[in-house]
């Protein structure tokens, strides 16, 4: 649909501050009297702490305080309260905070921290979730089951299973009785890192008036506020958290990560702000990782290709603390069907404690890991059935009238998988691929994807807007800008809703829990949907205020009035009008008496009827869905096994494009992250749980030269939930890349891979094995 401002390119409101170096990120914050901290990490990934000797560190120059976890009696967490800010009597992963030094400079803090001596009693280390669930495995959390947790979670006491999520639809596993063909396979999506270029960091300041002020490179300032208030026994209103510019998030800054640790450290030096910023190494070892999923998938179908049943078992190496990974595991389970309807589902997921850094979101919660399996399986099933893989998929796509794994019925407005597939087929498969030559094999592959938002039923996003005396509008929200461009979206949606040019809408530049409207947290590709709806609601209220005032000024009933951004006027005679400039702070009559309300409004929006899953994993836990397809054109160098992705094609049904330039950037960026995961990126551990590659020169992010050519397009089937038909897109582009590339590898060479990254060594070895 044609809109005046939505669907057009506008520059980001923060672009100028970012190209002039004036944007302020966490490490750029300077405060009077600020102290700096360095944190000691353990020598073992799993051990009891026998003693800590801080005496040598305390004598070092510039040292103000040395802190340990001794005496820390609180746990924290939003889902499972199993986290501690600093190790108390045991360490559970190699990056865990053991002790810290607070000093007058970073250099002094770092010089002293290494002099802290710790005596450990090592315990068995579990890096692989399959080892952690063996019956004789030592418990990483002997308290498992005793921690406070959300009522929807099911820890299994006496095991390392922090949560079991079991979804049954139809006859569950018994549904395979109706199948004529069954295939099954194991897939691995190993731990990776979001690796934003800005490392994590936080500043916490316990003040003498018993308030707490904090800054964080996090996208959940309101959760940090509530968590710190709870841990330190102060009213939520007495904790003030700032989120300023964030140098990339991609998921791993979306939960509480380092803030409680920095708060614990700062609580020992009340009156002084304490800053801590992760080194790149610590960003890998001591914040959240992504993925870590071992997926067993079984699919049953009729001979004609009709899908019948799916069984999935996800073993999720959730890391040393389960608070953040549980949502990732759960989403990986109920989204494991991909964009297909199965009458019978038996989907099981275990979040397993392992001696690895905790897992959090990675551009979404648990979609890419299991749909990697689904989309590889669809190609394998097509071969088994001797069917065209496009036809097999299109027979089974979720679409109007179909019912997904959670029992949610699909509507036309949930999007059009068929159109996405047709476009990709036309763009990427209409010409013959290059013929094998002396140097290369050539291949093409594709994958269909489905993504639901991930949130909580109470998740909401607030919006406050005020119209200024000149008719311009100040828009205040609490969506964290991490680069995804939500402030551009907010500006365009507000402009459209208020019928004023985007240039007259000034969006917020930072979040401050003292002034910003409440937002749960900026996750799950939900800002456009929920935040956009909140803007429309606030705009409707603001326009109603203007009309109410105008009805008094123009002496006419309010329903006879129209608003066009500049005037409120009589529908039947537009010459009877009053300028919004004259009424937005109330209307001043000839004798000075002023009537009417200020043109300001507040609102928020949740997803409609979003629910918790019931005991069988059924419920409206998606509400809004986005479909899409991605394809890869690849070359494989025969001599080296090196895989080169020449082109990525991506089509998503986003309902309505808000900003074409920005949405293209989002899809390219996400696709390239997933390309990295498919070919290069993996956290490597030794058997003792040490991370072997916690640096950019060892953990290889895709570079400029490795970026493919891009063909990106969008289908627009309007969604009635989001603003002007738009739905989320931020995380979707990471989902289809790995299966598309691995399907292309098969197309090029006939070699099957079920695990990523596919390195040149793996590829070459597969090529040499002629079998």
């Amino acid at each position, binding site marked *: 649909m044609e809109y005046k401002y939505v669907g057009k390119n506008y520059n980001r409101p923060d672009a100028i501050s970012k190209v002039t*170096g004036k944007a302020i990120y966490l490490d750029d914050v300077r405060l009077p009297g600020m102290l700096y901290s360095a944190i000691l990490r353990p020598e073992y990934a799993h051990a009891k702490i026998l003693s800590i000797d801080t005496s040598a560190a305390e004598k070092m120059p510039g040292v103000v305080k040395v802190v340990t976890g001794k005496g820390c009696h609180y746990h924290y967490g939003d889902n499972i309260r199993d986290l501690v800010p600093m190790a108390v009597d045991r360490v559970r992963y190699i990056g865990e905070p053991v002790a810290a030094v607070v000093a007058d400079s970073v250099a002094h803090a770092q010089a002293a921290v290494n002099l802290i001596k710790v005596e450990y009693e090592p315990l068995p280390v579990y890096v692989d979730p399959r080892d952690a669930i063996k019956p004789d495995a030592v418990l990483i959390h002997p308290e498992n089951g005793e921690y406070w947790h959300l009522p929807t979670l099911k820890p299994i006491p006496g095991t390392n299973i922090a949560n079991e999520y079991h979804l049954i639809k139809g006859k569950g596993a018994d549904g395979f009785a109706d199948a004529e063909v069954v295939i099954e396979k194991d897939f691995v999506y190993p731990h990776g890192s979001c690796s934003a270029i800005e490392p994590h960091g936080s500043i916490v300041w316990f003040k003498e008036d018993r308030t707490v002020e904090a800054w964080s490179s996090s996208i959940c300032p309101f959760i940090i506020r509530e968590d710190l208030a709870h841990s330190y026994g102060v009213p939520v209103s007495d904790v003030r958290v700032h989120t300023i510019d964030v140098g990339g998030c991609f998921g791993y800054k979306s939960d509480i990560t380092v803030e409680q640790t920095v708060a614990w450290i700062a609580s020992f030096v009340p009156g002084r702000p304490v800053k801590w910023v992760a080194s790149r190494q610590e960003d890998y070892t001591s914040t959240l990782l992504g993925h870590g999923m071992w997926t067993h998938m079984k699919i049953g179908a009729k001979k004609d290709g009709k899908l019948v049943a799916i069984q999935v078992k996800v073993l999720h190496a959730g890391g040393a603390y389960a608070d953040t990974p549980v949502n990732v595991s759960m989403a990986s389970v109920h989204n494991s069907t991909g964009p297909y309807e199965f009458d019978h589902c038996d989907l099981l997921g275990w979040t397993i404690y392992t001696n690895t850094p905790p897992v959090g979101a990675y551009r979404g919660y648990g979609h890419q890991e299991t749909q990697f399996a689904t989309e590889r399986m669809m190609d394998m099933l097509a071969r088994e059935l001797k069917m065209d893989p496009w036809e097999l998929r299109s027979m089974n796509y979720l679409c109007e009238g179909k019912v997904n794994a959670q029992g949610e019925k699909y509507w036309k407005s949930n999007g059009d998988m068929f159109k996405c597939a047709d476009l990709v087929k036309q763009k990427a498969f209409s010409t013959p691929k290059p013929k094998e030559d002396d140097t290369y094999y050539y291949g093409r592959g594709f994958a269909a994807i489905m993504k639901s938002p991930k949130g909580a039923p109470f998740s909401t996003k607030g919006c406050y807007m005020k119209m200024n005396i000149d008719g311009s509008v100040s828009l205040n929200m609490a969506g964290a800008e991490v680069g995804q461009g939500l402030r551009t979206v907010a500006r365009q949606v507000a402009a459209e809703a208020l019928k004023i040019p985007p240039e007259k809408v000034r969006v917020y530049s930072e979040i401050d829990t003292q002034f910003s409207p409440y937002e749960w947290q900026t996750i799950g590709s939900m800002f456009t949907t929920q935040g956009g709806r909140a803007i429309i609601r606030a705009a409707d209220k603001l326009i109603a205020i203007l009309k109410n005032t105008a009805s008094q000024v123009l002496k006419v009933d309010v329903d006879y009035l129209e608003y066009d951004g500049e005037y409120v006027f009589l529908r039947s005679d537009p010459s009877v009008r009053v300028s919004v400039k004259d009424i937005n702070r109330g209307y001043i009559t000839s004798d000075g008496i002023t009537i009417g309300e200020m043109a300001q409004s507040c609102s928020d929006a949740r997803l409609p009827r979003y629910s918790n899953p019931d005991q069988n994993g059924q419920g409206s836990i998606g509400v809004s869905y986005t479909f899409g397809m991605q394809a890869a054109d690849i070359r494989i160098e025969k001599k080296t096994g090196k895989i080169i992705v020449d082109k990525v094609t991506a089509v998503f049904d986003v309902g309505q494009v808000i900003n074409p330039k920005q949405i293209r950037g989002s899809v*390219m960026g996400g696709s390239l992250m997933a390309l990295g995961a498919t070919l290069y990126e993996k956290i490597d551990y030794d058997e003792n749980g040490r991370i072997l590659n916690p640096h950019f020169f060892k953990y290889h992010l895709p570079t400029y030269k490795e970026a493919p050519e891009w063909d990106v397009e969008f289908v627009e089937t309007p969604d009635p939930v989001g603003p002007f038909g738009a739905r989320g897109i931020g995380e979707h582009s990471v989902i289809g890349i790995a299966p598309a590339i691995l399907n292309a590898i098969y197309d090029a060479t006939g070699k099957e891979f079920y695990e990523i990254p596919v390195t040149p060594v793996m590829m070459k070895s597969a090529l040499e094995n002629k079998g």
Partner: protein
Amino acid sequence: MSEKITFTINGTLTTVEVEPDMLLIDVIRDVLNLTGTKRGCDNSTCGTCTVVVNGKATKSCNTPVSKVAGAEIITIEGLAKGMELHPIQKSISESGAVQCGFCTPGIIMELYGLLENNPNASADEMTQALNKHLCRCTGYEPIRDGAVMAQKLMQDRK
């Protein structure tokens, strides 16, 4: 022992009294409070700390300050003339190359080092320069677009 080290930064003659092995990035960020230069890694890999020293793009995170005595340094803060953006800043701000913006100052300084010396740099030289910088947001295409736009603006300016 601290030493006095003098250099010109963004056109201003400046003397700092610091340990000579202090890294240029720390002098720029923590002594001179020019926080536009960013730190993204521990071992000179990501490129976001890049500044221009004597006309050449240089990683400030592995340059001891003693090496820049007498040098002419330009940081991201030194590019715009008042309200007027440098053509590279203008192009990068409009091409979609800015998302989170954390790699942006380094990339702009890299291009400045390249294109101010050689506005007719070849596509290959441009690629070599940009390949020194990690960006996690954009997929790189908009950075290339911005670089090409900037080059055109700089070739056309007189």
